[in-house]
């Protein structure tokens, strides 16, 4: 039947078959029907199917006609299709050596951010990268991660990523692009590249630097400009280079932060946090003291033992006064300053002054001088010259001016979004319009991309080859962990290769060739080791490390600002940075550490300033600066300096994707230059409008409840048991039900409030590990965010100048859990190891467990929150964790999938699970190592020893819940009152 063409089958019906002379059936039959008219067939038919005979005999019944018409049409459809090419699929007869279904594989690579790398290990499941962990071998990660590293996995699968090469309005091809670049190169070889302009983000990639230099050699008149919207300001060395400080906080007893959010921001945040936490972990050992002066509260400020809040101009004045006292012996302007100066003098060589990345040059300059005067240079801080730009560059304003003058015939914009993030005063859109041939390489066909003739989708770092240098100068190779999701994507290297190599090379060849040239003797082995470890071993790059700095040039004093007016402070956002992560829904919904705000940027004001302006949280004000104005919702923030407004970059995107388009306002418009981080506001008026903001925590105060136990170091040394005395665990246990017995393991967690810096890395790590959905702004407003671990933030003291505290709260896995007894269907049950397990299949969604949870750590799928619309997002899901449907309760499980995986390994080797073998996602991410997980049935385990400390206490332990997660009380170290 299937071999028949429709025509022949119709013929067979309509025409009587040619019957052969011998009276038999046709010798050459065209169809079964025809054949079937043979005399042999008909009697057989009568016998076999008597009821169908009439139909068969009757040449054309209506029913038969319809039936065959339908069959013919179907066949016509089949034959109309072209034959699919044969594709042989072969199951794993011999499976690839490393792939065991269900067993994750980890690959080392590097995440680059603002031109510097941080090492990561990427967990892949059957070829799908699903989770980012820190690379313990990498000096800028040391096994920890920050929010951007964690969330970058979602960026890979972002359905809004650009997927095809575009020329004008049409989809184009790699070949067409190659031809286009070839023709441009030909043209530019005439003018030595005078019309070739390149605008890109900063990079330290050795291979790229090499490529840039080759391109520059080939076309020496080409014009280059590198910029980062959130590049740090630096002091200038005598040779005119940027001075790059590198701090060793493990040796610093006194840390002074001049508006430096070093625990959160920058390429060294993880190592700084680690070193900072190390000196705060054990109150019995040496303990550092942190002074912070800042305008808008940051997590570093929240950790401060002494914190001053001043508006930006006063931060400079403060630094100048401090310098005057310490360098010139001018008596202190205030007793507080005098105390700081004394403390610094007493800790020569053991203190460090850190100037904020976004402070003007003079502050960096003074910090350098102060560190030198205090003998800190070489001890707690080293200054080096920053790597020079690989090729001679021109300043951004000149670059744009030349574009405007029509000097460029070809412009390549790579990895930056100047239409969005350059100050309006530069007039970049106008400049771009002057360029005849513009090319854009980016992850998204964004504001800039859409205005360029060519757009090339950039490869995500997890799907491409590359290399990058860490803050301490260690290079590492970026290796892809997945085949590019879209065939057209290319890395910057591959695009530059179009310009310099004939034929163009692929990323692997470029990186591999470069490192084979630059590695030590045994290159192939060293190459493999470098890939394996995630850091390049035995490299011999001449550019590294840079020379130490001996002196800095005098910085220009900033123009004095009028004290009465309102200043504005601009910072990268603490979730979406400068906008590059704007379309990352995990980051959008990540509660900012101090505001707990999601899905928006705001104009942050102090209580007093808001009062004097007559506005309150949610009122929209119009901010005017640099000839531009934006409308921003007000956020009144305790701990904010008076007399200034602080705003964050990264919002107000218009062309990036579903997540970020139209969210927030673009604070970059308020700058007059890219490096301008604070300035006077030209105006700020209430508009009368209001905007609803989505915050996840509405209450500031602990209401006098002993939720975070805080002790000064001095008091702790006198009586370390105070924390326990406040909240004794009720013993013996009183319970109606018989106690549980934990024969093998009893899992528990300890969270050190002393070292926790509130950086949110655990929150994103948990979201990534446990397939936690994003709910969107309106749902957050309703109070339905899904994070399994949240960081509670409390203010203590005066609202104008409060102390700030963080407390990560996830399911406490209570031994006498209130949630378990009230579930009518037994969907949350106690395990033999003390976990409160959720049985999603059993849950009917009464939500009684959540009501009865005193910690309110349970999360409910009020609607269908799991994204089933976008197929790429499904690739990110952890196969070991259920994706929850609507109507189901969920909560922290202590990463039970990791416990089980460790158990399988241990059982195979017939041994108990070792201490430290199970690392929960939050614990793995934590740069401060504040979270420790383990077995409390083993008194020698790390968690048992932590729980034996006098600072150990259970949250709301007086409710008799016996939480398995306990906290270590926070110890502060203010200078003695004397």
């Amino acid at each position, binding site marked *: 039947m299937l071999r028949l063409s429709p025509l022949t089958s119709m013929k067979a019906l309509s025409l009587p078959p040619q019957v052969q002379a011998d009276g038999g059936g046709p010798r050459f039959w065209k169809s079964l029907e025809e054949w079937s008219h043979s005399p042999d067939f008909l009697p057989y038919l009568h016998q076999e199917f008597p009821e169908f005979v009439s139909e068969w005999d009757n040449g054309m019944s209506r029913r038969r006609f319809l039936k065959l018409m339908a069959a013919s049409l179907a066949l016509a459809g089949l034959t109309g299709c072209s034959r699919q090419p044969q594709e042989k699929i072969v199951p794993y007869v011999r499976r690839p050596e490393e792939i065991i279904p269900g067993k994750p594989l980890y690959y080392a690579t590097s995440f680059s951010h603002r031109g510097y790398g941080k090492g990561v290990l990427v967990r892949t499941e059957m070829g799908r990268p699903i989770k980012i962990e820190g690379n313990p071998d990498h000096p800028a990660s040391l096994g920890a991660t920050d929010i951007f590293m964690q969330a970058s996995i979602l960026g890979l699968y972002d359905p809004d990523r650009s997927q095809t090469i575009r020329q004008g309005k049409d989809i184009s091809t790699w070949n067409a692009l190659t031809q286009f670049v070839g023709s441009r190169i030909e043209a530019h070889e005439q003018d030595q590249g005078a019309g070739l302009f390149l605008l890109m983000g900063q990079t330290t990639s050795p291979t790229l630097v090499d490529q840039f230099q080759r391109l520059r050699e080939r076309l020496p008149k080409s014009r280059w400009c590198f910029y980062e919207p959130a590049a740090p300001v630096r002091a200038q060395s005598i040779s005119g280079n940027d001075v790059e400080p590198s701090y060793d906080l493990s040796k610093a007893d006194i840390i002074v932060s001049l508006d430096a959010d070093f625990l959160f921001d920058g390429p060294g945040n993880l190592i700084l946090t680690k070193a900072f936490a190390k000196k705060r972990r054990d109150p019995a050992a040496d303990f550092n003291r942190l002074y912070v002066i800042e305008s808008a509260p940051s997590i570093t400020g929240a950790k401060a033992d002494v914190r001053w809040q001043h508006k930006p101009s006063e931060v400079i004045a403060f630094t100048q006064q401090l310098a005057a006292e310490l360098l010139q012996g001018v008596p202190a302007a205030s007793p507080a300053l005098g105390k700081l100066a004394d403390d610094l003098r007493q800790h020569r060589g053991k203190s460090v002054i850190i100037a904020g990345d976004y402070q003007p040059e003079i502050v960096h300059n003074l910090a350098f001088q102060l560190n030198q005067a205090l003998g800190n240079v070489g001890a707690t801080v080293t200054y080096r010259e920053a790597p020079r730009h690989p090729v001679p560059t021109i300043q951004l304003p000149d670059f744009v001016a030349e574009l405007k003058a029509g000097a460029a015939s070809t412009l390549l914009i790579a990895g930056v979004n100047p239409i969005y993030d350059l100050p309006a005063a530069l007039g970049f859109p106008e400049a771009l319009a002057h360029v005849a041939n513009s090319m854009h390489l980016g992850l998204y066909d964004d504001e800039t991309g859409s205005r360029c003739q060519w757009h090339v989708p950039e490869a995500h770092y997890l799907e491409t080859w590359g290399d990058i240098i860490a803050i301490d100068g260690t290079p590492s190779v970026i290796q892809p962990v997945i085949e590019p999701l879209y065939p057209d994507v290319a890395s910057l290297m591959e695009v530059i290769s179009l310009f310099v190599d004939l034929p163009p090379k692929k990323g692997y060849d470029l990186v591999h060739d470069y490192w084979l040239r630059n590695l030590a003797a045994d290159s192939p082995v060293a190459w493999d080791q470098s890939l394996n470890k995630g850091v390049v071993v035995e490299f011999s790059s001449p550019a590294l490390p840079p020379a130490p700095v001996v002196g800095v040039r005098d910085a220009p004093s900033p123009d004095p600002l009028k004290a009465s007016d309102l200043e504005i402070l601009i910072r990268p956002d603490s979730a979406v940075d400068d906008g590059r992560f704007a379309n990352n829904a995990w980051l959008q919904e990540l509660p900012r550490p101090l505001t707990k705000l999601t899905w928006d940027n705001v104009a942050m004001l102090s209580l007093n300033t808001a009062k004097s302006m007559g506005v309150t949280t949610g009122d929209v004000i119009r901010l005017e600066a640099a000839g531009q104005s934006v409308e921003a919702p007000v956020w009144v923030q305790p701990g904010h300096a008076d007399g200034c407004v602080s705003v964050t970059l990264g919002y107000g995107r218009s062309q990036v994707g579903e997540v970020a388009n139209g969210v927030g306002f673009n604070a970059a418009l308020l700058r007059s230059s890219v490096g301008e981080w604070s300035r006077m506001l030209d105006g700020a008026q209430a508009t009368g409008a209001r905007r609803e903001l989505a915050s996840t925590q509405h209450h500031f105060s602990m209401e006098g409840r002993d939720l975070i136990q805080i002790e000064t170091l001095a008091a702790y040394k006198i009586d370390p048991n105070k924390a326990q005395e406040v909240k004794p665990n009720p013993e013996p246990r009183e319970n109606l039900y018989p106690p549980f017995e934990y024969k093998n393991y009893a899992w528990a967690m300890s969270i050190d409030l002393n070292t926790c810096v509130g950086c949110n890395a655990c929150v994103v790590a948990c979201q990534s590990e446990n397939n936690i959905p994003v709910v969107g702004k309106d749902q957050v407003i309703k109070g339905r965010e899904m994070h399994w671990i949240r960081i509670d933030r409390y203010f203590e003291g005066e609202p104008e100048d409060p102390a700030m505290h963080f407390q990560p709260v996830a399911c406490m896995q209570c031994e006498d859990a209130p949630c378990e007894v009230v579930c009518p269907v037994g969907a949350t049950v106690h395990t033999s190891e003390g976990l409160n397990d959720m049985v999603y299949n059993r849950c009917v969604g009464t939500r009684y467990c959540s009501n009865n949870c005193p*910690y309110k750590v349970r999360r409910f799928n009020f609607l269908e929150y799991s994204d089933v619309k976008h197929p790429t997002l499904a690739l990110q899901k952890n196969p070991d964790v259920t994706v929850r449907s609507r109507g189901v309760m969920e909560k922290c499980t202590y990463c039970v999938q990791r416990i089980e995986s460790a158990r399988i390994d241990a059982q195979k080797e017939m041994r108990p699970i070792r201490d430290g073998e199970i690392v929960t996602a939050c614990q793995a991410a934590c740069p401060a190592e504040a979270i420790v997980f383990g077995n409390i049935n083993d008194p020698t385990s790390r968690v048992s020893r932590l729980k034996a400390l006098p600072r150990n206490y259970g949250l709301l332990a007086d409710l008799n819940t016996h939480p398995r997660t306990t906290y270590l009380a926070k110890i502060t170290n203010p200078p003695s009152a004397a």
Partner: protein
Amino acid sequence: MRTTPTSELEPLLPPGVTDDSISERISGIVVKRKMGLGWIGGFAIAFSLLMMFNYAIAVLFAYGVGIWGIQIPVAWGFAIVNFVWWVGIGHAGTFISAVLYLCHQEWRTSINRFTESMTLFAVACAGIFPLIHLGRPWLFYYLFPYPNTMGLWPQFRSPLIWDMFAVTTYAIVSVVFYFVGLLPDLATLRDRSPHRWQRVIYGLLALGWRGAGRQWSRYKMAYLIMAGLATPLVVSVHSIVSLDFAVGIVPGWHTTIMPFYFVAAALQSGFAMGLILIIPVRHFYHLKDIITGRHLANMAKLLLATSLIVGHGYFTDTFMSWYSADPYDKFIVADKFSGAYAIGGWMLMILDVGVPQLIWIRAVRQSPVALFVIAILANVGLWLDHFILVVQSLHSDYLPSEWRMFYGTKWDWMTLFGSFGLFLTLFFVFIRIFPMVAMSEMRGLVHKKPGETKEQGA
């Protein structure tokens, strides 16, 4: 009692009444009277509300409980408030039918059918809410101990399981009690129906009732037993519903006064709802001589008495929270009267304890309009009481970081008002198909001489 004004000693029956006239009047409403415009109009409104209810539930099933305002920490909202409120309303019916029957309070006879119907319909409304409030309502049967391949039983420590049993039992007993009480009246309807189809239907429902002496004697015994069975339910159901809260660790819920106070509040809302229904019906159907001012005054007195008990509950709750020195409980009680929900806290005190105190005044007691208004306000107050209990307690419990305000959405309100639609639709249907006053019991009353009850009741 001696000084009770005459109107409250008004005879329970109109003068010159006979067995036949009683039966004729009451059954006539069902079998003879044409559908009036008033009925059609009222039914249309009720039915529209019911359709709104259906729509709200259809949307709910399509999207999930997220269409409501509930969140974390306030994971229970209108659905549970409505459930508790409707179950409470049911209680007065059983109280009047069973408890007053056992106490030989024969003034109940002309209103017990009303209040029993009210019970059934209120329980029908109430029963819907626990079902639809589930995140996955299609799996509601997980709560039942049915044999299954998973070998799983529900978790009997959970008050929700107790609740499920209590409400199911209550619904079943109420239906049976109601039906048993209806039997002689169904037979009367059968006998007095003008159309054959009516006679067939009522005949089937009457289960062969012939009014024989033996039937009466068995019937009386059965009714007494049913009343005896129903009586503990008046106390047990709402006590168990209250355990949903009292067992919880939530400050404001975790108090031993809950069962006592819940039952009182339930009866109060039931008496109020009874007044709300009876007053218009006796007016529109000209039953003022059967459901007399004395009936209303008695109901009002019960409403007053229960409001005092509820007031006592509030006082004790407040006192105990202070006396316990539990900081969380103290906070929640203080917050009730001074926090974000303070308006609700004060309103409920005024409406369900303050306003009913007007019943002390005789003129108020004798004015159906005043009683109607007081009853509505008391019921609003009791709804607010449950709202404050559920929402305000949850909105600020132990960790201030998770404190959050609850706001009902339009779907919450549509479901609440839609449930009135269900209740009223059932009620409108009821007054068309069943006798709204128990004829058989009224006939019994005809044969009693005035003053006879007192002696008999002893």
